[in-house]
């Protein structure tokens, strides 16, 4: 049984995990790169040790350095968070070999689910429908993929076998587009995952991306915590998530069917700890297995808010060999939760990353608002890592209340110094189609055009800019004037008083 946990991550998720550990009375160890000395996770942790230069491959991806710190600090467990080494079977194995508990699934489960082809075959064997694709053919060369493409059918997706997070993925509508898409996807996959192998998968149009959170302990118990709606994506990157899904809503049969299938997939690989099974759900409510994420998800808080279950604490509980805190019939969904991912990207400039110092950060608070962040006023965002700097999560009794609360929270949020995706979310929360729940995974890319709308108040903007310009011009003039007056204020007063005599 461990009492000290090393968090092998950074940013908001490292802070999130530290909080769970501290609430459980566990000691904590942070690791940090040279670029992260001032990061919040370093400041929050009980102990913190440097592990190398800024680029992730020299620090947060260095299994040897992280294990070395764990052993020196006497940490009995390592929580990998998401990204970095979270889905590396080598890392999970290395922890096991070093006698350190890995807060996550066994290396074999990570390996079988990490390879998309193996994962899809596992799902098929478990009787779960998958979208048609070429994964059973193994690693293919471009010529083979080109030959197989017409069989899969267009439109299709070229996807990295080791992919995730929308990287190493390209959409292809015709055979002519395929060669360029394969080159681009391979390039990105090699850079991101060190594996350029690809497969093709039929693209289901009009589908929603809905996923099921599961928890499994070492005693053979598996429960699901309901679904999350993740269809609001831009270029396959999730931007906003909800729990439950407006598409599933009151359809208890669908929720139960998806939940049972998710538990079955987890059972098929003897899964232990928290995991997520992603599905595509078409307009007829048929659902297809997409992939399994063998880790904590970015969007786990929405499930926490509607179930009241702290997923990170549950992960630690499972890693300590204890039974799940609840059985399936004790899992109840209460109300609605929504999460907006706040990225340091400029939504007015094609979501270009924005790097700089956050001069002001006023975080929204008040009823039903939770903010998970790793940044603060005065923090400089390094260029080496993911652009997500914060998550705003709101709970409401109904979807309407949760969304209106999110509008209110985003209106209060002030981040100055870098551009963020807050304006994107504000516009989304005024889109009638989104509010009505009529959207699928194509919505943001195809049907949402906030830039085309007429800006509502140009006169106000003109007045504000002019007032600021005027004030700054005047201040500049005053500085010059002060310098020009070569007499001290005391002398000035004396002269003025003499004049009045």
């Amino acid at each position, binding site marked *: 049984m461990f009492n000290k946990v090393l968090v092998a991550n950074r940013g908001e998720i490292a802070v999130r995990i530290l909080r769970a550990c501290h609430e459980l009375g566990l000691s904590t160890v942070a690791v940090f790169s040279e670029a992260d000395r001032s990061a919040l996770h370093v400041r929050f942790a009980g102990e913190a040790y440097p592990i190398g230069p800024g680029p992730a491959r020299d620090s947060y991806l260095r299994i040897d350095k992280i294990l070395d710190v764990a052993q020196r600090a006497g940490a009995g467990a390592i929580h990998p968070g998401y990204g970095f080494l979270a889905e590396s079977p080598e890392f999970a194995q290395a922890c096991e070999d070093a006698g350190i508990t890995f807060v996550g699934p066994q290396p074999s489960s990570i390996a079988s689910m990490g390879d998309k082809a193996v994962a899809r075959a596992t799902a098929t064997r478990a009787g779960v429908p998958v979208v048609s694709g070429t994964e059973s053919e193994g690693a293919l060369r471009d010529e083979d993929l080109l030959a197989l493409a017409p069989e899969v059918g267009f439109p299709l997706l070229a996807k990295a076998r080791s992919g995730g997070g929308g990287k190493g993925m390209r959409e292809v509508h015709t055979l002519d587009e395929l060669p360029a898409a394969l080159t681009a996807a391979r390039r990105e996959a090699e850079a991101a995952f060190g594996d350029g192998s690809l497969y093709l998968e039929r693209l289901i149009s009009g589908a929603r991306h809905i996923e099921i959170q599961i928890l499994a302990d070492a005693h053979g118990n598996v429960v699901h915590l309901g679904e999350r709606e993740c269809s609001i994506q831009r270029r396959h990157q999730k931007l906003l998530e909800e729990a439950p899904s407006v598409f599933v809503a009151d359809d208890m049969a669908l929720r139960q069917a998806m939940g049972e299938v998710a538990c079955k997939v987890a059972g098929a690989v003897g899964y232990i700890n928290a995991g997520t099974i992603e599905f595509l759900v078409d307009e007829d409510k048929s659902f297809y297995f997409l992939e399994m994420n063998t880790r904590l998800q970015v969007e786990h808080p929405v499930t926490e808010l509607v179930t009241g279950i702290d997923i990170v604490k549950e992960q630690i509980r499972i890693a300590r060999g204890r039974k799940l805190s609840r059985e399936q019939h004790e899992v109840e969904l209460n109300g609605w939760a929504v999460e907006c991912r706040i990225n340091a990207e400029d939504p007015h400039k094609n979501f270009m990353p924005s*790097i700089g110092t956050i001069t*002001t950060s006023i975080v929204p608070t008040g009823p039903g608002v939770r903010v998970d962040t790793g940044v603060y006023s005065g923090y400089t965002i390094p260029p080496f890592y993911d652009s997500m700097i914060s998550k705003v999560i709101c709970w409401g009794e109904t979807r309407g209340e949760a969304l209106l609360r999110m509008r209110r929270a985003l209106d209060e949020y002030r981040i100055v110094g870098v551009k963020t995706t807050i304006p994107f979310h504000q516009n989304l929360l005024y889109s009638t189609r989104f509010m009505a729940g009529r959207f699928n995974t194509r919505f943001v890319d195809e049907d949402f055009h906030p830039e085309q709308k007429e800006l509502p108040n140009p006169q106000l903007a*003109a007045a504000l800019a002019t007032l600021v310009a005027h004030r700054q011009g005047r201040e500049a003039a005053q500085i010059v004037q002060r310098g020009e007056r070569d007499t001290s204020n005391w002398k000035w007063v004396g002269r003025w008083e003499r004049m009045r005599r």
Partner: protein
Amino acid sequence: MKYITTVGEKTYAIEVNDDQHVTVDGKTYEIDFLSVGDQSIYSLLIAGRSYEAHVELTNEAWQVLHAGNLYEVIVMDDRAQRLAQAGGGTLALSDEFSLKAPMPGLVVSSPVDIGQEVEKGDILVILESMKMQNELKAPRTNTVASMRIKDDDSMEQNQILVVLN
């Protein structure tokens, strides 16, 4: 002090009369205006209505972010307006365009060569930053005059990558 202020295609004649009054297109408003917390966030009360916006100057234009909407605003005082009109002839737009790094990053590849004709929208450089590969494109049809980069170069923000002429 009088200003000519432009937002997109709309132009406003604005006069800042004193600290409490501003006249926009001939109509005078009573205002209470202050910077909140010594930052680029400003609070404006107009006849009791409260507005808060983020206002900053970048590349000669003011960026006003209010309620999720971004406005690009150009503010010219009388003098600047006259100067601009007088000097307008000499400020001919140069054909040269320097592509600068919009953020620090690593050059993944640059699919163009010196002397190559590029069309508007052609990819000039792929720059990796924050785990994303960003395709930087040509703003207009032109010729590549010089390449200041090679693959795997590490770039600072605003460093010149490619010059078109």
